[in-house]
């Protein structure tokens, strides 16, 4: 598929065209804060608001594929059920490579074994315009996880090469969108492609604020030996069980399901909402029996899910993409997976 | 008609908080007329001691759910006074707008939900849905917009979050203000419809007058709710930091709550007081509403307080629309607030929907509160309600016990008392 070059002015037109022709366009925007800008995906209404120079978003883009709360089925009380599947199309602009890896993992997890039509319908109706990272966030360690750059998982990937963007269309959808929305974009030259590669090469090693002292492939092995390591109790001693690490993570997808009815008490809906395995009652059953009662058991579970359990479902791929969000979100500063894995590595030496 | 009257209303309904009415008359001779307040005392002034200056508004907001914005604002102003903090023009305007939202919300709630049933002869707004469904829906609609306005400015409807010493924790987005302005513009008509509904039953407001002193804030060229000095309709004006010598809170043997008096035995605070002191500065729409009811400056019928509230509701809608224009013209930006605590005393007054509200605090050098004195409008009105009662009962006694009781209840409601505000009511066991 094609590799095009879009000038910065042409880029504005490109985004404006998308905003004007497509319904739901979401892009990364600044959230003005007293202590400097922070970033979040939100409905994009003007090309000027798009900020592809961002470091990391507060929440990952998963909120558009697996919304914080969504309706699964609607029903009549005492009567029948009806699927509620959102078929709206949307475009996400500015997804970073590590978040793309996370989305790819979720795609696999929601489609393997039992096919989750709710997630998958949304996913298939979503066009992703990704962008290479222009600025490392304070906690990113994507380079350690091999997720700093990607070659697929997007429809279009944009790389800022200074005066212009190089746009790579990886799917037909992307190709069509590029032709339609950026008709003036010419093919990228050798030099442009070299400049693009330079950005990606830099990211491959440069997005590494926390350095994992082994390869990601070694993590399952480390965990196999580390189940009874003191690290779990040590770290979890100050865990609030607040689930911030779950909620900000692009690869966490556990959910809760609840019913609610209308005031008529005759009809209602069943929703699913984000949940977190660090929350105290996540594994509670009747009789107040909690299968992971201790903080350290829950804390350990999360890191095993990232580094061992989910990888088994994904053919080995580690379910931590190194975005570093949990590191920043954890108030007692214990959530950093790299710190745990490095400590396990130390212990096994 | 019997000449014996025995009214004993325990825990009067459709007011905020608890109040009792006791009237005894035998053989046409009035023996006892009393307005009592059995609200549980909550001791806010004692409770704020030891708390940091930036927690004060969070605490005192809980004095009253209906006027929580006024309580927060007056507390913040007093804290700022104590620490010599100057706020930006943007902060001032946003606070004003927030304050307007409470006036609108509270007035619509009071006239629409609590007073209107009296005028329609219904026990509550619930059966009113059957009698005047459109009116009820209109009232609900305006009330909702007032609440949305609070939410945008205060962070939520009740107990504001965004007001902090020195400014705002979060300012509204310009797009939100634009939307709000549209909503407000759309409320003018429904508001006038409510006015017309009330007008259609206004004959039910008793013709009762008693020469009264009215106390409110006053500022040049402004129908003020937020800035200015303390003024009496009798003439005197005092700066806000002398409010304790205006309220002159005192305990009287016959009363159950602390009373207030300034130049006479009692005074009235509230919409009618503001109107009587500032009517010339009402917005055109506010004036038009007042005119419809023939409300003119100098009115001393306490029942007209409800009409003054309607005029104010119209006024704040119109003023809010203007204020949003001003804010948008300048652009709304987040401002970082830095406060260095220092020792000192702080005084402030604002107009709560139901009347002038005073706070006073003392802080040590670390900004820890050492003491407080708070005086709420309902407290200031108790003595006046009592004196109104004393004049009202002989005048309307012939109408029989039921109508008299109803009249007294309406009179109390006209003051829009907010008894739960009671920071320091005396608490009496009733027989």
């Amino acid at each position, binding site marked *: 598929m094609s590799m095009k070059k879009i000038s910065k002015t042409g880029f504005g037109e490109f985004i404006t065209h998308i905003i004007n022709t497509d319904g739901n366009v979401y892009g990364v925007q600044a*959230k003005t804060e*007293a*202590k400097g800008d922070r970033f979040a995906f939100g409905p994009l209404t003007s090309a000027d608001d798009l900020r592809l120079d961002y470091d990391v978003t*507060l*929440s990952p883009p998963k*909120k558009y594929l697996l919304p*914080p709360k969504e309706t699964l089925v609607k029903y009549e009380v005492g009567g029948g059920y009806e699927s509620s599947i959102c078929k709206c199309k949307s475009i996400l602009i500015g997804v970073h490579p590590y978040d793309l890896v996370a989305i790819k993992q979720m795609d696999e997890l929601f489609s393997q074994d039992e096919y989750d039509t709710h997630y998958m319908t949304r996913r298939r109706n979503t066009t992703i315009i990704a962008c290479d990272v222009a600025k490392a966030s304070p906690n990113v360690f994507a380079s350690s996880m091999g997720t700093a750059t990607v070659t697929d998982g997007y429809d279009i990937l944009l790389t800022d090469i200074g005066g212009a963007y190089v746009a790579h269309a990886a799917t037909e959808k992307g190709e069509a969108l590029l032709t339609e929305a950026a008709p003036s974009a010419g093919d990228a030259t050798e030099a442009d492609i070299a400049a693009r590669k330079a950005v990606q090469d830099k990211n491959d090693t440069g997005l590494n604020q926390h350095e994992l002292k082994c390869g990601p492939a070694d993590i399952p092995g480390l965990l196999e030996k580390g189940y009874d390591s003191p690290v779990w109790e040590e770290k979890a001693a100050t865990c*609030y069980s*607040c*689930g*911030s690490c779950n*909620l900000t993570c692009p690869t966490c997808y556990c959910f809760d399901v*609840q*019913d*609610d009815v209308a*005031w008529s*008490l005759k009809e209602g809906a069943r929703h699913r909402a*984000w949940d977190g395995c660090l*929350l*105290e*009652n996540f594994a509670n059953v009747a009789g107040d029996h909690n299968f992971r009662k201790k903080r350290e058991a829950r804390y350990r579970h999360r890191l095993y899910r990232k580094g061992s359990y989910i990888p088994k479902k994904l053919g080995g791929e580690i379910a931590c993409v190194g975005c570093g969000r949990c590191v920043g*979100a954890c*108030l007692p500063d214990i959530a950093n997976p790299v710190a745990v894995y490095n400590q396990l590595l130390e212990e096994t030496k | 008609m019997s000449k014996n009257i025995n009214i004993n209303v325990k825990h009067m*309904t*459709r*007011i*905020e908080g608890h109040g009792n009415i006791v009237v005894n008359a035998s053989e046409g001779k009035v023996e006892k007329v009393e307005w009592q307040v059995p609200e*549980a005392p*909550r*001791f806010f002034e*004692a*409770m704020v*001691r*030891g*708390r940091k200056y930036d*927690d004060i508004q969070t*605490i005192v907001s*809980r004095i*009253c*759910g209906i006027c929580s914005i006024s309580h927060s604002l007056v507390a913040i102003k007093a804290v700022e006074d104590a620490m010599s903090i100057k706020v930006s023009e943007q902060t001032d305007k946003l606070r004003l707008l927030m304050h307007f939202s409470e006036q609108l919300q509270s007035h619509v*709630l009071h006239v629409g*939900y609590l007073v209107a049933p009296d005028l329609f002869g219904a*026990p*509550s707004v*619930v059966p009113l849905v059957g009698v005047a469904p459109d009116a009820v*829906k209109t009232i*609900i609609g305006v009330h909702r917009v007032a*609440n949305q306005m609070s939410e945008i400015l205060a*962070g*939520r409807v*009740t107990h504001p*979050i*965004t007001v902090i010493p020195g400014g705002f*924790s979060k300012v509204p987005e310009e797009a939100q203000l634009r939307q709000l302005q549209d909503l407000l513009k759309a409320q003018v008509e429904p508001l006038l419809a409510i006015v017309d509904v009330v007008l259609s039953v206004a004959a039910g407001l008793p013709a009762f007058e008693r020469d009264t002193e009215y106390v409110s804030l006053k500022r040049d060229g402004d129908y003020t709710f937020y800035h200015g000095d303390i003024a009496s309709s009798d003439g005197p004006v005092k700066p806000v930091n002398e409010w304790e010598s205006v309220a002159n809170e005192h305990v009287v043997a016959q009363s159950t709550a602390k009373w207030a008096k300034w130049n006479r035995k009692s005074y009235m605070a509230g919409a009618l007081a503001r109107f009587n002191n500032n009517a010339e500065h009402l917005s055109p729409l506010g004036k038009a509403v007042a005119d419809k009811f023939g409300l003119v400056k100098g009115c001393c019928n306490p029942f007209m307080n409800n009409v003054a509230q309607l005029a104010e509701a119209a006024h704040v809608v119109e003023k809010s629309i203007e204020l949003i224009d001003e804010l948008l013209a300048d652009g709304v930006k987040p401002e970082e607030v830095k406060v260095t605590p220092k020792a000192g005393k702080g005084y402030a007054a604002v107009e709560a929907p139901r009347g002038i509200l005073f706070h006073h605090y003392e802080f040590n050098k670390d900004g820890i509160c050492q003491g407080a004195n708070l005086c709420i409008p309902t407290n200031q009105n108790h003595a006046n309600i009592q004196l109104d009662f004393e004049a009202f009962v002989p005048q309307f006694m012939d109408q029989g016990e039921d109508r008299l009781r109803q009249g007294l209840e309406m009179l109390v409601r006209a003051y829009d008392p907010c008894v*739960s*505000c009671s920071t*320091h009511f*005396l*608490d009496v*066991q009733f027989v």
Partner: protein
Amino acid sequence: MSKPRVAIFDFACCEGCQLQIVNFEEEILDLIGAVDVVEWREAMSEQSTEYDIAIIEGSITRPEDAEKLKTIRERASILIAIGACATIGGINKLKNNFDLDEVKEYVYGEDAKMPHLNTEMTMAVDEVVKVDYKIHGCPIDNQELAYAIRCLLMGKVPVIPDYPVCVECKSKENVCRWEYGEICIGPITRAGCGAKCPSASFRCFGCRGYIDNPNVDAARDVMEKHGLTAEDLKSKMVLFGSKQGPTI
């Protein structure tokens, strides 16, 4: 089945929670379609001694209030406490940190000795009678109350969060108040409010009470990391959390 009869009562409080019921706006018509509101002093003149569900606002500060509450409990088959004053004692419990005689004297001066000024330690509703459900918050979130009432009508136990405010705060994509050095007690406070305060860039001050099992060690650790003391933390926790009982 006939509609359940609901009565709403208030004790020492600001009545802000009842105001949230008024703030249902049009939904109030749905509410009165689903239940019979037989008593609600703030908004109605109707009164009744017969009801199935009693909704209680406010804390108990006087012996006569405790007696009244007990009578209500006897009459109601379901009793719901709404708002911090009722569920945890709320702001009213700040008083309990002082000597009560001193408190009275501070506010009333010489008159403090008058017998009718009797006040006792503030109690949450469940310190006096059994409470079936608690709708937390100062003020309550009226949608949570609406949900809980619908659940009861369906014969279902309402699912009230037992996790901290941070959960909702994170899904709102707020910047943590701790990044500004503010003492936010969201990590130990029960969620359900939708993280309204941090969403308005203001620290959580704990109006919904603590979660079942707050991690005090973590709180201490975090205070240290931010160069603050346990006293600073206590000063914030005391606002709504004075002498707090269990929250569920």
